[in-house]
């Protein structure tokens, strides 16, 4: 049996990679891909806790299913916004779309 810490270390590293990607990438699509990586890391955590700490083993899996559903909704909306930004500016660099910056 693999210790629980192995899964947690793995998802922690995956989440940190996602944080780095969200903060450092210029292309908006890359930022969204990094967000998906972070959500996947969270799902691994949910499933690992569910398999190791929960007697019924079901709550974490249910939460991971909802994470997948929300991720699908999020990526659809976010890519629509990205396409809209591209149509208005011919660029999807997030550091150039700064009209709302104070």
């Amino acid at each position, binding site marked *: 049996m693999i210790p629980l*810490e192995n899964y947690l270390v793995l998802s922690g590293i995956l989440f940190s990679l996602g944080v780095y*990607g969200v903060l450092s990438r210029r292309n908006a699509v890359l930022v969204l891909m990094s967000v998906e990586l972070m959500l*996947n890391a969270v*799902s691994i955590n949910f499933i690992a806790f569910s398999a*190791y700490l929960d007697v019924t*083993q*079901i709550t974490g899996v249910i939460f991971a299913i909802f994470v997948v559903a929300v991720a699908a909704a999020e990526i659809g909306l976010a890519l629509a916004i990205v396409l809209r930004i591209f149509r208005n500016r011919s660029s999807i660099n997030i550091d150039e779309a700064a009209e709302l910056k104070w």
Partner: protein
Amino acid sequence: MSGFGITVAFWILAALTLASAGGVMASRNLIHAVLFLIVAFLGVSGFFILLSADFLAMAQIIIYVGAISVLILFAIVLTPRAERDNSETSMVLPALLLGTTLAAVLLFVLYDANWNVTNVEPGLSAEVLGSALLSVWVLPFELASVLLTAALVGALMIVRRQEDEEGDSAS
């Protein structure tokens, strides 16, 4: 499956997932980054199988590898004149610092904590999952369907071309 086989599978999947997640960050080509991301999604679904969440592994492959990756590829194809070189913003050093700090803190905390591992007998059938989803968790389940419908309609409204901009945008 023997314990040794599971251990070997875990380390192979861990190497595959972390290497392809690093490839997403390191690759200079946007299409290559998406392909690395697909491999990372497949690795994560392998972890779900190792943790005996087989239904979720299938859902992961269908939704992430099948739908979300295609959506991302479409977004890249539909933005043809945008930059494709996967460059960084000026935030790269703070991001690197924050990422490594976050990883170090997480690693320290989760090795320091005392997890009460109660259940080492894996196994959860899709039948149990389905009946729980439609009895105890039926309200969030229905809310998720409303959320997906709202997201679909919202995405359509956002990308829809309005009448007043028909003339000025030839693209």
